């Protein structure tokens, strides 16, 4: 029983990272109908931005002397990484996706694959292909409740993700930008006719999605300790599956999907074999495509000519 609880706690914290990344996929897909393959790399760049920001703020000296990293600096690291990734996301949109926005579907898809490949390999040249140990911007404290270990890191991951998702919910439902985003995902042409600045709204979507991915990157670094330039490939793919599972285009769907994928992965690793933890995601993807392609919270929209 305590083992099951332990796996569920680990799964929820991993799942909330997937959910943060999945939000970026689902928001972009909802508006542009584009699988943003480069999103996993935006997540990777966010993790590295946090790594370097923490280094600049002198975390290594603090770690060496055994002191904890101050919490306000940790938040600053998070904000810096989110800003870097948001800038990257907006730049990608401007340089690579906007020129092909009205091209046939395959063109933006191949462009996105190209951007993803470029960032992976540019990352390997810039950051070196070797994995790096992520600095402990939050020093681990363990609590034990009847055999179940909860660390403050796992708790913080869950809480930060929850806070960001709540913020996103408010933004999408209570602000004009959010209303414009919803209008765009409903019907981009009609939204244009209503005087919505589509370019500005799409830019905002990329900025928000990328910032959330960067937060996911830092939390991933905290959780998994090691980062490398190719970390975005598999994690990005899992987050995408999470978005499909929840219903692509649906924001609550991405959260539900992310948590479910995280749980499934942890339970597989715990009860079957750690070798299958990556494979289970694809089994889920195949099953959902066969049984309910619109996802758990997605709506079936008729195809129009």
């Amino acid at each position, binding site marked *: 029983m305590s083992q099951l609880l332990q796996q569920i706690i680990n799964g929820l914290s991993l799942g909330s990272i997937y959910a943060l990344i999945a939000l970026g996929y689902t928001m972009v897909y909802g508006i542009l109908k584009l699988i943003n393959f480069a999103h996993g790399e935006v997540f990777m760049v966010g993790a590295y931005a946090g790594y370097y920001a923490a280094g600049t703020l002198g975390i290594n000296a603090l770690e060496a002397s055994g002191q904890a990293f101050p919490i306000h600096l940790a938040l600053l690291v998070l904000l810096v990484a989110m800003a870097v990734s948001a800038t990257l996301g907006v730049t990608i949109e401007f340089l690579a996706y906007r020129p092909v926005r009205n091209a046939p579907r395959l063109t933006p898809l191949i462009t996105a694959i190209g*951007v993803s490949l470029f960032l992976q390999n540019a990352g390997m040249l810039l950051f070196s292909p070797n994995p790096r140990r992520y600095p402990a911007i939050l020093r681990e404290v363990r609590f034990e409740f009847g055999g179940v270990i909860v660390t403050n890191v796992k708790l913080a991951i869950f809480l930060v993700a929850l806070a960001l998702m709540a913020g996103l919910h408010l933004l999408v439902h209570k602000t004009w930008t959010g209303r414009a985003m919803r209008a765009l995902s409903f019907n981009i042409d009609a939204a244009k006719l209503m005087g919505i600045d589509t370019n500005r709204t799409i830019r905002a979507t990329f900025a928000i999605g990328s910032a959330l991915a960067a937060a996911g990157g830092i939390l991933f670094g905290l959780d998994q300790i090691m980062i490398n330039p190719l970390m975005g490939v598999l994690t990005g793919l899992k987050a995408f599956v999470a978005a499909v599972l929840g219903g692509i285009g649906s924001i609550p769907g991405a959260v539900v999907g992310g948590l479910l994928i995280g749980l499934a992965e942890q339970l597989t690793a715990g009860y079957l074999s750690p070798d299958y933890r990556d494979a289970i995601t694809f089994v889920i993807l195949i099953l959902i495509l066969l049984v309910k392609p619109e996802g758990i919270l997605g709506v079936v929209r008729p195809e129009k000519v």
Partner: protein
Amino acid sequence: MLWLKRCGFSVVVAAAIYGVGFGLEQLLTDYFLRIILLAGINVILAVGLNLINGTTGQFSIGHAGFMAVGAYATAFIGVALAPLFGDTALGRSLTFNLALVAGALLAGLTGLLVGLPSLRLRGDYLAVVTLGFGEIIRISFNNAQFLGAATGYFGNSPAGLPVYTNFFWVYAWAALIVLIVRNLTFSQTGRSLIAIREDEIAAEAMATPTTRLKVTAFAISAATAGIAGGLFAHMQAGIRPEDFRFEKSIDMIVMIIVGGLGSITGAVLGGIFVAVSLELMRDLQQYRLVLYALLLIAIMLLRPQGLLGNRELTALWSRRRPRPTGESA
């Protein structure tokens, strides 16, 4: 007497390939021969991938997985068949080609299994599913003890896999596959595939069985990748899972996009381009994928139809054959 003419034509082509191969093997060093063989294998890969990515407009980005299935299956079955047919020239050819066909069938079957769930839907799911599948296949071979796991498969003998692949077999298979894909593209089925690419809803409204055709095209494409894998396996002493990394799939995509999505001659040129450019960039290994990525983005932004678009080179000197295309994609 059309069939007689066609048989005669095939014999002439086969003899020509044999003659050219014999000549080249006398003239060139092993280094250049290897590049020429790789170019031929790339042609098979590109023409096969183009059938699904270019002609049908469904994007696969994990074809290295099917190549791996074909390579391992051909090598494994070849090892099992070899004692049956003996070590004569005829026996070796029989073993090799039967193993290749078996490898292609297995790769095609895998394609069927991967394609069925993902191709039922419209949209870009195939890209994601094949991306995941390519990695899963590689990880599976990495863990398959009876296939040598991460060290690779080298057959039973200490010398490794027998080197069956030579100029004749590579280019004979390439010619056969180009012919099959060409005939398919210019047939009624091919027109249906193009209709799916141009407008799937309209194609469906015209009673085109879209799912069945997409899955068929995908399975054929996977089978050709399997043949290329088998030829690749028997070019050297062994195959490793590392030979079929994601980069291999990207190489294939570069081949067809450079040549032009939907053009068979374009795919042939693209295959040769990648084989030569890989060799020229040997010293720039770490920059190669950055350059390929920039090349992909640049082509998509500047000339999304690729260099040839969906035109064929042959159209330059023969105007008789109508092009099987509607307005550009």
